[in-house]
Every structure is written in structure tokens, then in C-alpha cells.
């Protein structure tokens, strides 16, 4: 599936008259508007983080992507087709084939073993028992639970349970993963492990991952792009770096206030346009060359140990500029 997921002017209100106009929804006392006029495009193969505080409508937004909740107004487009046009059967087929979900509360079936839980989606899709168990076992082994196949969820720790939840989604090998605050209920250390696992999985096999989070550090760490939501509205949607450097409104800047700039800024954004030395020669073996996409926190140890400015190059290896320890200090103190 190379088609992006598109949301066009999507509204969702709970309660209120069906077919009401946006103005009517906002004024009605019975309607609780969860999502307001959100338009965005999730590109195939990216980790797209929807970030916001609780009650910002982000979980509702996620559920509109796989049709668990249908929008009051607007269009959700999957595989180039509006979701509203899918019949019930097609919608089920889409969920079995193309998009699997991971839940904050894990939502594992307590009477099933880890293996049977992981095989659940395949079972619904009618895959024969032996085949689905083999696939489920592979998925569990991939998430590091090869030794706990026959344990029940209540015999597993929180982190292990979410690994089962992840394996249940991976067993389907879906092009799209929907992750609803998937790591929010975990301890910080285990959460970091799970984020690493997700990034590893993404390196092995690119999927479109829509990740809901209320933790900006998590969003910055794993997200290719971040959509910031507040009170049902989409504030801004871009890379973490752009959100940080060019917030569209005050609320966006507030989200980023406590964030470590070294984890957000890349060398490309802070490099001085001048070459590292006057007679810059790309073939000089002593010269350090770094990619413009490298984060400051990764570059700091390299730049500070080099005894002269470091060259920064873009994707096609052309020179963008140079970075010295001073450049970095100036960027961080801003």
C-alpha cells in the first residue's frame, strides 16, 4: 500500500444531530465535539505521531482511520478510497489485511495464551491453525518472547504483555500499524526498550505507523513527523525540528518548552553557511564530514573532539556548511 492515508476536514462529535453543520455542532449543548476540522496526510512508510494531552481527540482520530468510529463530517481516505464507501465486509477485510492496532491497555484476551493472542487476527481472517500459530510464533520471537509462548497474559509483566500486543499486530504483517498510546502504561525504561524495538522493526521493514502519544519526548524520539492536537484541533503538523524552530502558534511553542533542543535540532539547521576551512577539499582524509540529518545530541561528541570545524553535507553529499563547538553552543543557548 503506497497510497497515503488522507483526512479531509474531518469532524467528529458525540451526540448532536446527525448531519449537523460544523457551526451547529460547536453551538449545540448535547454535542461533544472531539475532533474539529482536521485535515492531514500520513505518508506511506513514515512514523506519524499524533501528540496531544488527554481529551485532545487524538484517540478518536486514530479510530476514524480504521473505521471503529466514523466521522460526523469530512472524509477519511484509505488506499485511495473514502472509508465511507467501504462495505462492512470490505471494512473487516481491510482491518484483517491492512491495519492492525495496538492498545494502551494491551487488550489481550485473558483466557488465551500469548501464542493464541498473537494468532487472533489471523484466526479472524480464517488462516488454518497450524499456519497461523507458526506466524504468531515468528512474531513473538521477533519481539523477544520466544520463550513465553504458552503463558497467559496474567502471567506476564506489563512490558511483556505489550510485546504480545505488538506481536498480535505484527503477525498480520500489516502495511499500517495503529498504536494508541501503546507504550504509555509502561515504566520509562521498558518504554525506551519498546521504542527501540519499534524503530528496529521499522528499519527492517517499513510500515506506515500512526502513533498516538501524550509524551513529547516519545514523539520526538520516534516520529518522522508530528501532528500536535489540542481540544480537538490540529495545531501544526511537521517534523519535530520545524515545530520547534517555527511554531505556528503559542500553544505549539508551549509544548516544546521543556524539550531538549539537542534531541530535536539537526546539523543541517544550525550549520554556518561557510566551508569548514578556506581551502576546503572534500578528499582531505583528516576532515570529518557529518550528515545534515544528524541530531545535535549525536554530533556533540564528534564535533567537540575534532580540532577544527566539521563539514556538514546534505543527502547528495554536497556541502551545506560547517559546524564548530561554538555553533552548537550558540544553537543550544538560543
Amino acid at each position, binding site marked *: 500500500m503506497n497510497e497515503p492515508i488522507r483526512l479531509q476536514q474531518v469532524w467528529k462529535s458525540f451526540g448532536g444531530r446527525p448531519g449537523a453543520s460544523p457551526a451547529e455542532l460547536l453551538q449545540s449543548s448535547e454535542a461533544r465535539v472531539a475532533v474539529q476540522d482536521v485535515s492531514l496526510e500520513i505518508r506511506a512508510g513514515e512514523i506519524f505521531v499524533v501528540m496531544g494531552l488527554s481529551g485532545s481527540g487524538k484517540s478518536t482520530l486514530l479510530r476514524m482511520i*480504521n473505521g*471503529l468510529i466514523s466521522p460526523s463530517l469530512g472524509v477519511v481516505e484509505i488506499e485511495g478510497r473514502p472509508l465511507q464507501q467501504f462495505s462492512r465486509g470490505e471494512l473487516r477485510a*481491510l482491518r*484483517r489485511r491492512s491495519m492492525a492496532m495496538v*492498545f494502551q491497555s494491551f487488550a489481550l*484476551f485473558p483466557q*488465551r495464551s500469548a501464542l493464541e493472542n498473537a494468532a487472533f487476527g489471523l*484466526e*479472524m481472517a480464517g488462516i488454518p491453525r497450524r499456519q497461523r500459530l507458526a506466524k504468531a510464533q515468528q512474531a513473538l520471537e521477533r519481539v523477544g518472547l520466544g520463550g513465553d509462548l504458552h503463558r497467559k497474559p496474567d502471567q506476564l509483566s506489563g512490558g511483556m504483555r505489550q510485546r504480545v500486543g505488538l506481536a498480535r499486530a505484527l503477525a498480520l504483517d500489516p502495511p499500517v500499524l*495503529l498504536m494508541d498510546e501503546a507504550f504509555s502504561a509502561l515504566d520509562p525504561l521498558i518504554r525506551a526498550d519498546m521504542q527501540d524495538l519499534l524503530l528496529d522493526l521499522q528499519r527492517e521493514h517499513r510500515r506506515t505507523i500512526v502513533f498516538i502519544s501524550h509524551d513529547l519526548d516519545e514523539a520526538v524520539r520516534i516520529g518522522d513527523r508530528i501532528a500536535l492536537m489540542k481540544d480537538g484541533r490540529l495545531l501544526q503538523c511537521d517534523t519535530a525540528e520545524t515545530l520547534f524552530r517555527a511554531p505556528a502558534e503559542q500553544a505549539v511553542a508551549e509544548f516544546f518548552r521543556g524539550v531538549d533542543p539537542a534531541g530535536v535540532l539537526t546539523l543541517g539547521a544550525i550549520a554556518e553557511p561557510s566551508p569548514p576551512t578556506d581551502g576546503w577539499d572534500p578528499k582531505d582524509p583528516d576532515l570529518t564530514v557529518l550528515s545534515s540529518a544528524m541530531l545535535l545530541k549525536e554530533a556533540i561528541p564528534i564535533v567537540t573532539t575534532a580540532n577544527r570545524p566539521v563539514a556538514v553535507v546534505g543527502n547528495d553529499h554536497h556541502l551545506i556548511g560547517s559546524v564548530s563547538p561554538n555553533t552548537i553552543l550558540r544553537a543550544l543557548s538560543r
Partner: protein
Amino acid sequence: MSHLLSQLWLAQASEAGAVGATADSIVSWLLGNGGALFSLINTVILVLTAIVEQLLNAPAPWLLALVVALLGLWRVSAAFGLLSLLGLNLVQAMGLWEPMVSSLALVLTASLLALAIGLPLGVLAARQRSIWQLTRPLLDLMQTMPAFVYLIPAVMLFSTGAVPSVIATLIFAMPPVVRLTVLGIRQVPADLIEAGRSFGCSEWQLLTKVQLPNALPTLMTGVNQTIMLALSMVVIASMIGGGGLGDVVLRGIQQLNIGLGFEGGLAVVILAVILDRLSQSLSTPPSRSARDRVRSLATLWRIR
């Protein structure tokens, strides 16, 4: 209105009033117009009861007792297996085996029918609000009505004997399984339902793969309760010729024969305990293997 009031006023204790007269006429109407249906129900229940009784009588008493004891050993505990063996032998020794088996046949038939109607009804009521709203007052009525009251229309529609006993029993015993099925299914956490849907469950798959497995323990409590209520009603149903252990107790009362009444009552208790524990054990898988249980049986003999 005044006519109705005066009728109510004048009604004697021995005679039914206007409300009772209506119920009376409904039963007569049913008898006059639903004859074919009632004779069909009659035949079905008669045949079913006969089959169950035949099955229970097929093995020798000692063999049936042994089978029950082994079931108890496997599902509950070694001590329970042993006690049920002793209890059933006591029933046999008191000469009450035959009435016990016929009571058991009535209980099993009535419970089977109550479950056959109650489980699907519970599932429907749990998923369809309107069905629940219709069912609920009916269940309230069935549960609050004194047990004896069921006997009268049952006798009027089906005369006396096993059939009205089974019918009165199944009506009396059905509410818990319906209620607890509804409760069990409603109690399935919302995130599991959502997980089911998000992995592409059809409605049928959602019911059979998510809701019922998660509701099973509650559902089985309902089954247990239904069986226990069926036993208590079967004893009462001896008053309309249901036969069995209730008959023994009833004779004890009528003849002021304390010994006979006590023996009948004891047999009812033994049957009740065995049915209760065995049906309760259905809701949980045996926690230990059969071999462990045999071993624990062996420790019973090791007197220190």
C-alpha cells in the same frame, strides 16, 4: 368499576377474585385453542425425560456412583470424590436409589431445556437492548412468583406427572441463566470488544471468540444456579405427581413419619451437594492434573 370492586370485596379466601378469574379464563382459552401445541410439548418432554432416565438407569447403581465419584475426583478434589461415593452408597442403602434417579432425570431434563432456552435468550438480550427490556420484567415475575404458583397452570395445561413438573421447573429455574448470561456478556471489558473489532471480527466472531469466552465464568455460575433451582423445584413438584425424592419427603409429611422424611431429605441434600460442586467445577479448568489428584487421594489413606 363498582362491579369489579364489589367482586374483589366479596371474594372469599377459598375463591379466586377478578384477577384470578382472568388468569383462569386465559388458561382455559389456551387449553381450548392450543391443544395441538400442548400435546406436542407434552410428547417432547415425556420422551426427553424417559431418555434421560433410561440413560441414568442403564448402568448398575454402583457403576453410576463410581462414575460420579471419578468425575468428582477429576473435577473437584479427591476428598469430594470419596464423599460422593459414600453419599451415593448411603442413598442406595436407604433404598432411595430409584426415586433419586427419577429426581435427577427431572432435574437434568428441566435444566437442559432451561439452558437451551435461557442461554440464547441471554445472548440476544445482552446484545439487543429492546429484547432485554422485554425480558427483564418477565424474569422479575418468574423470580418473585412463589414456586407453588407455577404448579397450578402447569397442572391445568398438562395434567399431573413428569411433564408439568418439568415445565414448572424449567420456568422456575430459567431466570438465573438468562440474567447471568446477560451480565457476563455485558461485563466483557470494552477494550477487548474494541480489540476484537479492530482485528476484523464479524459479529458472530465477536460473540464466539471474544464475548462468550470472556463471559464463561459468569455464564457457568448461571448454569450452576439453574441446576440448583431446578433441584429445589423438582422436590416441590412432587405435589403434582413429579415423583422422585420429593415424593418420599411428601409421604413422610403426610404420614408424620419422621424417619422417612429425614431419609428423603438426606438424599436430596446428597444429590444437591454433588450437583452443586460438579456444576460449579465446570466454570474452571481443573487446576491440577488427574495424576496429582489420584496421588492426593492416596494421601487420604495415610493416617498418622
